[in-house]
């Protein structure tokens, strides 16, 4: 494999990792409360700026990752209990508008607090070296993003498919009434879904900063939207689908840039949304969901 192709592949996978992390949380939250959470992307921004603050006070990197997970989880639980819990049971549109409101509040608070100025976000110098891999090489940053994402996803799948909490979450997502009749505390289960999903989004923020080198208070918009697209590709509500959707999206974007003539590569987001429209037309239930189960 040529270095060029390999580089594109690694690039696509690391971009896809970011989308997958955000999309999984997005999908989890939708699966359990049927809420398209447009504030989800803003957790990415919160994760990125928390990291910047911790770098400034000299917290060591491994601890930063742990703290970012915790900050994301707490922020997610806060949003859930303050904003979404009081309107539970309201029509879906109400929830949808509330998520937009949360997003606007978070973005503008961040603008007031941090100003709209771009800030440099740097991983430690050793992260920028290149790792030789038998004739080709890849940046350590990308490799770390890909590997840590796989690790986090593995942990998530373990929680969801092998623990009591995960079983309760899947049961609640499928049949809320029956779950309550089993003695499941629905509020606590939903809170857990928000905590886990938001923690993953916050970590994606660390990776986002490291990969692109600059962050600003509005950076959450794009990953939030892309996560939505990834979920539609994979099938909304399915975790495996959201993950694969994220990787497909990342690879497709890199492919567009690589294959399209130079003057069109600036339109890569347009192609992403074209992909979304095609999938909505051809297979609206998503590529990895066999049938649509709409819980009315």
């Amino acid at each position, binding site marked *: 494999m040529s270095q060029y192709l390999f580089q594109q592949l690694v690039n696509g996978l690391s971009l896809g990792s970011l989308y997958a992390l955000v999309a999984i949380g997005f999908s989890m939250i939708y699966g359990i409360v049927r809420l398209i959470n447009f504030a989800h992307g803003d957790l990415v921004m919160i994760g990125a700026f928390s990291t910047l603050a911790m770098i400034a006070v000299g917290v060591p990197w491994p601890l930063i990752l742990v703290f970012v997970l915790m900050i994301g989880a707490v922020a997610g639980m806060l949003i859930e209990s303050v904003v979404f819990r009081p309107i539970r049971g309201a029509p879906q549109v109400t929830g949808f508008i509330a998520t937009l409101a949360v997003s606007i509040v978070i973005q503008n608070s961040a603008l007031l607090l941090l100003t709209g100025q771009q800030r440099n976000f740097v991983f430690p110098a050793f992260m920028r070296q290149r790792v030789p891999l038998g004739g080709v090489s890849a940046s350590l940053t990308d490799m770390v993003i890909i590997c840590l994402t796989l690790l986090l996803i593995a942990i998530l799948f373990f929680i969801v498919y092998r623990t*009591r909490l995960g*079983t*309760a979450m*899947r*049961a609640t997502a*499928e*049949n809320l*009434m*029956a*779950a*309550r*009749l*089993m*003695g*499941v*505390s629905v509020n606590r289960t939903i809170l857990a879904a928000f905590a886990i999903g938001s923690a993953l989004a916050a970590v994606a923020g660390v990776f986002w900063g490291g990969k692109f080198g600059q962050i600003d208070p509005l950076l959450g918009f794009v990953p939030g939207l892309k996560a939505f697209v990834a979920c539609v590709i994979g099938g909304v509500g399915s975790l495996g689908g959201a993950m694969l959707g994220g990787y497909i999206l990342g690879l497709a974007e890199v492919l567009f840039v690589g294959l399209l003539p130079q003057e069109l590569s600036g339109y890569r987001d347009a192609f992403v949304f074209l992909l979304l429209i095609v999938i909505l037309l051809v297979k609206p239930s998503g590529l990895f969901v066999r049938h649509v189960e709409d819980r009315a």
Partner: protein
Amino acid sequence: MLEVRGLDVFRGATHVLKDVSFNVARGELAALIGANGAGKSTTLLTLSGLLRPRSGLAVMRTEGGEIDLTRASAERIVRAGLIHCPEGRQIFQSLTVAENLAMGAYTRSRREEIAAATAEVHELFPILKERASLPAGSLSGGEQMMLAIGRALLASPKLLLLDEPSLGLAPKVVETIFDVIARLKAQGVTILLIEQNAVMALEIADRAYVMENGRIVLAGAGRELMDNDRVRQSYLGVPL
């Protein structure tokens, strides 16, 4: 064990239960019969804390104490031992059979106890052991009903509410289900059974209530009601 007095329940603007009162004594099998839409399922949903009454009283008394079912959370009601096996089975289709049973034991934490209870359910319904790792949605209707009852049993019910366990099942499966209900009763589980299949319900019930349009219109021993003309005509299909 269960005392219900003057229960009034609304669903939206509809007054569904009107001044409903009845009792279930410890170790007893009580049947609640009545036509579709009479308010039977609403009664059970209110007892398990999923619907709140506008007024009235519903109390369950066990060795553990007394619990006000009109105020306690659904979670606390389950922990107190009132287990509701809902209409239409409501099993978790995407979970495996084993996971469904584990969800039944959600409020219990002692592993040995759960394992023993699972073994008992497997003995009652061997098919659930055979299909343990299959998704519950792949089971037949009768097997799903067995799973729903098995799941309820894993919660170790003191008072078991069964909503239409025979609905849509083949006669042979209905027999199996009723055998199990009789067995549970013999084991001392208090049961409140809702049925449209009035004959079978009245045959095994110690006490029965007839519900019409949200009111209890008749009460008596199961056998007694079977001989009641009104019941015979309306629910047993016997012409006068």
